[in-house]
């Protein structure tokens, strides 16, 4: 929930803090994923790339893109405990977006396949894979999903 709250606030540092020290995030379409085509929409598969994603949004692109507000709606489908506090979690998501003119629509929908590390009260992603059913996005994505 900290993850989607951070994204819906457009708080990229908050987004980054949801990941473990060694972690990766990949956002890929189902079309590529199911065909064994590895290219993703965002392949932040190392800590360095997660940090770069924050820089892209906060430093590189700021002031040029048309901003939009998102709301992430999620529904957990499955959660399996592994060893050393690791849980494999599968979660449906639907993300709405609202543009500057105030119109809203669905941005993307799909499923997360995550590995979560839980230690005490702290839960962070070791890996997060967002598989989008949406193949052709209705606008360019700025923020991770």
């Amino acid at each position, binding site marked *: 929930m900290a993850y989607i709250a951070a994204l819906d606030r457009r708080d990229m540092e908050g987004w980054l803090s949801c990941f473990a020290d060694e972690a990766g995030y990949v956002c890929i*379409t189902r*079309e*590529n994923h199911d*065909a064994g*085509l*590895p*290219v*993703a*929409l*965002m*392949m*932040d*598969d*190392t*800590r*360095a*790339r997660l*940090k*770069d994603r924050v*820089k*892209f949004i906060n*430093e*590189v*692109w700021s002031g*040029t*893109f*048309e901003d939009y507000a998102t709301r992430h709606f999620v529904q957990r489908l499955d959660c399996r405990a592994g060893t050393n506090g690791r849980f494999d979690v599968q979660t449906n998501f639907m993300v709405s977006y609202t543009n500057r003119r105030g119109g809203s629509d669905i941005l993307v929908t799909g499923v997360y396949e995550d590995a979560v590390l839980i230690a005490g009260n702290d839960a962070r992603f070791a890996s997060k894979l967002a598989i989008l059913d949406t*193949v*052709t*996005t*209705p*606008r*360019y*994505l*700025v923020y991770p999903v």
Partner: protein
Amino acid sequence: MADSELSVRWPAAYNTLPKDVFYRRDVYDAELARIFYGPEWHPVAHRSEIPNKGDFKTLQIGEAPVLIVHGDDGKVRVFYNSCPHRGTQLQICARGHTKEIECPYHRWLFSLKGDLLGAPGIAEFSANFKKEDFGLRELRSGEFCGLIFATCSDAAPELTEFLKGTEDYLGKALGGDGRLTLIGYQKTIYGTNWKEYGDNEGYHPPLLHRAFRLLKWQGGKGSNGVTEHGHKVMEAEVQRPQPGFLDDHSLVEFRDTSTPPRSVIVSFWPMTTIVKHMDVINVRYAFPLSPDETEVHYAYFAHQDDSPELYEHRVRQASNLLGPSGFISLEDGAVFSRVHGGSRGLGTVAFQKGYADKPLEAPCFVAQNDEASNLVRWEHYRKSMGFARD
């Protein structure tokens, strides 16, 4: 409305364009007929997207659905994706594999060459019905470095003529010899007119794309121009960006040692663009959905001779560098739709940088950071549409 009634006021000044061509529905409808279904060629697939016999892909030329099929004789054919009986779309997925092509509606069956093999109840058809008259409607097609082109028009010149002046650039952009492997797609819709999408130029990159400044990254020597058929070609030596800004500098590293570090772009008239930048090999199939929307399919490729390390590098670079959400390209999408929003503001727009108050002749080469050569494309557009200058 008859075509002859279509009227657009075109300014006399050579560097000036009317804004209403970016949103008028009547202009758009005429563009489909005169440009997209007219005497131009359109890239529709690379052979590596349909590498095996029986593989197919679907796409659009303008708004017309097409089906690209790798035949069992090894030839790639392009058909209208529409049953010659009642017009049903024959394939609806983006890519697939099949032995024959069957229309689901009345189960007419076609070979991969497009021949009608059989139709249920054929004995009760008109006495004049001949199977050979009802094969799939095939478009003229041709191939260069594995890239398949098609045209809807008998009036289009030979493909070799259409490509004139792009061959060297296209070969380099397609990995030298076109022996590619598909590694994936990124697809999006831009809220912009197709001509705004295609009107990028050399003036904007160091200004719009902050990444170039942050990386202290400058282009080197090169060429930048437009061919006589309206295709933009660009080649530039690229200096290696300096490390420091990115935590993962591999995103902007050249690791393919088989070619010198350079950027090569061929932007075909009317739409599709082929880009080789850093180690990314990218074909951007594009088609209009309406006067206000343009869909782009970014197809990415590796080379068949890549080591596993270079293959992985291309995948990681392709994913984050040049697409709709790419590090150095997201802002392009942002300005496409901002330009379109502004085009409603009546009046005209004009190209300035590199323009010397006189018409330009194709092929036209300008300085790397000039924009004036796009006017050669606009002249091709104006003539194709039959608009007279004031």
